[in-house]
């Protein structure tokens, strides 16, 4: 039973588009992290000159981009608690109104 699902999984893995296979996803991650490191290293060799001071500190745009994005996602998530409604939220009103007018 267990073996059967295992082999099924193996077949599925082969059927999948190459971009969706586990091994390739791992490779993509490794490549992505390599590029990230590269941009930080490249940052050591250039001088940012926006005249605020902080933008020339080590890997400023890297951590600033990451932190602000995490902040925005978390903020959106928190706001979602108050703002999210089911998709038919507005339709319900009009149904009631239509029923009312009938």
């Amino acid at each position: 039973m267990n073996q059967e699902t295992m082999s099924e999984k193996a077949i599925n893995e082969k059927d999948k588009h190459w971009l969706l296979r586990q091994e390739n996803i791992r490779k993509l991650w490794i490549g992505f992290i390599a590029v990230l490191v590269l941009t930080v290293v490249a940052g050591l060799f250039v001088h940012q000159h926006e005249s605020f001071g902080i933008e020339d500190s080590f890997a400023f745009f890297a951590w600033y981009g990451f932190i602000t994005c995490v902040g925005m996602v978390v903020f959106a998530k928190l706001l979602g608690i108050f703002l999210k409604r089911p998709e038919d939220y507005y339709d319900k009103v009009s149904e009631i109104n239509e029923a009312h007018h009938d």
Partner: protein
Amino acid sequence: MTELFFPPGLLLVLGALLMPLGLKVRNLLIFGLPVLCLALVWSLPADYVFTLPFLGFELEPVKVTSTGRVFATIFCIMALVGGIFAYRQASTLELAAAFAYAGSAIGVTLSGDLITLFIFWEVMAIGSTLVIWAAKHDGAYRASIRYLLIHLLGGLFLMAGIAGHVIDTGSIRFEALQLDSIAQYLILAGFLVNAGAPPFSAWIADAYPEASPSGSVFLSAFTTKTAVFTLIIAFPGTWILIPIGIFMIFYGIIYALLENDMRRILAYSIVNQVGFMVTGIGIGTEMALNGATAHAFAHIIYKALLLMSAGAVLYRTGKRRCTELGGLFQSMPWTTLLGTIGALAISSFPFTSGFVTKSMIAQSAADQHLMMVWFALAAASAGVFLHAGIKFPWFVFFQKDSGMRPPEAPGNMIVAMTVFALLCVGLGVFPQPLYDILPYTVSYEPYTAAHLVAQFQLLLFAGLAFFVLLPMMKRTLTISLDFDWFYRKLFPASSAIVEKILIVLQSNSIEGAKALLQGSKDLTKFKVLSRFHLADSWPTGSMVLWIGVILGGYLLMDIYL
């Protein structure tokens, strides 16, 4: 000279009226008119003005300004490529409405006075409403009515403002205005409603995604960017626009992050992108205004490209929710590739159009030592990549496999997307032709090592944040509340309550009034006073008679005393 008698934009508006004459005529008009209009715009000499006396005013139905010409140019290109995208699938109503809409937007960009501007402004509202209407489903119809109401409100602000401004100053010229009195504030409010500024931002995400696959492509281009144009001309350097713009930027990001509908994600990101332009107009330096103008130009192209790829997906699958999509890259590789180029361009990825335009706005903030603005813009650039640059292509074309294998988009759609994708990359690599037509001389070099490194770090680490936080990005079958809650929920609900109360009152009131009348009669009958004439109940006629006598008495007193 005769062809200059009507504004170039009117070509498209009048051409739209001929479109129902037949399919061949229609297609000829779709391909011919934008080219003709573009040629006409560029054949007019710079600073050309055509005047027309009207009711004691000197109208300027055609006035060529360098800013206006940039917008007219991109509007013509948009009409043409949008036409290519749409002409095989869209209805004649939609295409005619879209061309009337595009033509009136061009009319705004070339109007030299506020009256001409207002007329084209209102034709735009009608044309765009018809574009939404052409989707012909119930949701679109209702959304189009809400859309129209907001734009009539904006038009009302604008008209009241123009009337007041003309009374204040005696001038109808469309030029830089001082915020001296309420009239100019009303004009500003009218422009801002169309720009999607708070509190009226919700109409964009409400109405645009209800249009047909091609309809939302047209809609994304004209209304908000015409508003950007009018703000550039009338209110450059108005500081209040900076906080408004920054708010729009983050509003767009946050709401797009919460959204599940793929075209609504892109609609929210219109507000976000227009926010960058509005911020630039608020900063108001030559570099900032150049940046806002160039960014509008680039934005129309990549936003249309993104909505075209979303439209192609909707056309082939009939699905619009991220939760139902995914894995489409396997059977729609071209749409995926071209849509992703649009996503990179909106994120200002180096070697795309966004990189060479948006950075001018950030640079001008740094030059003016607006530190908070600059930091906000940098965070927002990362946020754009998060909410549109990765989120859109990831959830639509990649993520989990939805199992759908729809055929590739139709040929004409692929052609339109290819043209715009080439423009995204072309402008990114060779920005000079765009820089050359901007209103002010450009002294800005986008491709410095520092700028490249900064942008790569910012965007790629934003990408890292996206994939690290992917579990938190899981889409839900929800919508998000916005300011439109007031007019979609509160007002209808409160009117329903008032209606109920009225119905209860109505059924009770007749009985109640009878009882009251009877009671008062009974009461007066037994009152001691009822013996006297004045305490009796009088017929209405005698009351009118006596009022007539009193008023007549006043008249006589007035004449003789």
